[in-house]
């Protein structure tokens, strides 16, 4: 399993693609970060007059992480499309299939490699809020809850992307399908959000955003955590099944 992760991570970081992606995402996020910061500085005077006004964490960090989640929603499909679709198109999957490894090890290995890549992205991201420590007091607990949320979100994105990548031999189709699925899961509760408060809606429960938002505001619910863990496990298991089934057709 670790050797697959190592192989996959090596392939990922050796390609210019990964670095360009990291750099561009970082550029976009830093621009957003600066504009949030700018806005905060502008209205800071008025804010200080209001008792109980939102602080730096709510005004800068939470929106930044929210933006980051959206950008990652766009980026993840393009990384995970490589997982199986590209391998099948290059016919290099037989290398892994002939090696003495189970389908579970192959899938988990690849999953870990992609997660490690996105963890690098998150580490780069978290530097920006931490830079605020130089001049302001930030709520580190809320920040870590938000980062945990982002990590879980990425784990969910990656699991779904990997499964879809195993369905097709065209990487681009895999990317588009992954994006559509993730976007649908993102907005699925837009229609239900206006419904009566307290009424649980299964569509709303499926929403990734609905489980991410509480984490962003610093609330860690075990229900949200179990949702993400369940989401990841289901997609990983389906990928394993799919890889096993590939030998039959």
């Amino acid at each position, binding site marked *: 399993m670790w*050797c*697959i992760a*190592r*192989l996959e991570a*090596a*392939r990922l970081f*050796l*390609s210019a693609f990964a670095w360009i992606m990291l750099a561009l995402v970082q550029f976009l996020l830093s621009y957003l970060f600066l504009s949030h910061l700018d806005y905060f500085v502008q209205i800071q005077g008025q804010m200080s007059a209001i008792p109980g006004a939102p602080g730096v964490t709510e005004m800068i960090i939470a929106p930044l992480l929210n933006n980051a989640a959206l950008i990652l929603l766009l980026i993840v499909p393009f990384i995970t499309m490589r997982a199986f679709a590209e391998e099948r198109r*290059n*016919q*290099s*999957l*037989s*290398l*892994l*299939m*002939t*090696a*003495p*490894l*189970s389908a579970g090890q192959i899938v988990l290995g690849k999953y870990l490699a992609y997660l490690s890549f996105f963890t690098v992205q998150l580490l780069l991201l978290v530097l920006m809020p931490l830079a605020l420590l130089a001049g302001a007091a930030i709520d580190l607990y809320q920040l870590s809850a938000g980062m945990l949320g982002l990590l879980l979100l990425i784990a969910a994105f990656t699991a779904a992307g990997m499964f879809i990548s195993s369905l097709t031999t065209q990487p681009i189709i895999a990317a588009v399908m992954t994006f559509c699925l993730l976007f649908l899961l993102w907005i699925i509760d837009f229609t239900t959000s206006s419904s009566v408060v307290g009424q649980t809606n299964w569509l709303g429960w499926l929403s990734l955003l609905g489980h991410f938002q509480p984490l962003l505001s610093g609330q860690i619910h075990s229900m949200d955590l179990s949702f993400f863990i369940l989401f990841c496990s289901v997609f990983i298991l389906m990928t394993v099944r799919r890889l096993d089934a590939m*030998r*039959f057709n």
Partner: protein
Amino acid sequence: MTILLEARNLSRQYGATMAVQQIDITVKRGEILGFLGPNGAGKSTTMNMLSGNLAPSYGEIRINGFDLFSDPESAKAQLGYLPESPPLYRELTVSEYLHHCARLNGLRGKSLKTAVDLVVERCGLGDVSRRLIGQLSKGYQQRTGIAQAIVHRPAVVILDEPTSALDPVQIRQIRELIREIANEHSVILSTHILPEVDMLCDQVQIISKGKVVFADSLEALHQKRRNNSLNVTMLNLPPAEVLATLPGVTAIEQLSAQQVRLHYLAENAPTQQLLAAAVNGQWQLQELIHEQDSLEDIFMELINSETQRRGKD
């Protein structure tokens, strides 16, 4: 000799069509088995099944005693496979790629390093080991593919058309490499090139439309050459009637004013009598060539007879 790979009753169905039907394969230690057939005969399907990339509809496969389906990990550890298009990662260097392949097959630490060094040397990849695979010529890519299949010293190496799309020099080098590999491993070689089988293999299986039409040693295939003839050139060629009197000659074919082809039955070759008569009659013999059915003729015959037989069914 130990049997390293044994497949029984292997069949594969795609929808209603049977791509491969009831194939039995046995490979002993140190043998090269040539798996021969025209394009689309089911060679690659069979290779994919033997390497565990494709599940057969029926039948069983044992590799060095391990069942490929009930104990796939132990069985696959004994197996090296080069598919029709080598499974290479173009963004890695040869050396990086081989290290990863060895690691996938469970090699670690010092034994990993020695295994990679050895295989780089054996496959003649020393000069290119630090170059990106994507930039290499087809011949070197093919060698890297072979290196990948043998780096973990498997008991059985399966090579699917290893010399296709190479130039003649590269083909010769790859063939030499395959012969060398066979000193230590059993090799299954699928190909549609006949001379390759003739040069490399000990055992031959010919398949046509998913069925085995011939399975025996290479000598047995050679013995199937039935039609024998002598191609004779003489400056002072006697008339055909004179030649026809030689014992054993069944037919005479006039090729030119000075050249004839004498057909005879395999049991009694008229060579000695012809030479004696030529000296006595001062026929001035210039050239005497023994001709046989080429392997190609046998191959075509085997495949056609199978097709015809099936036509009658």
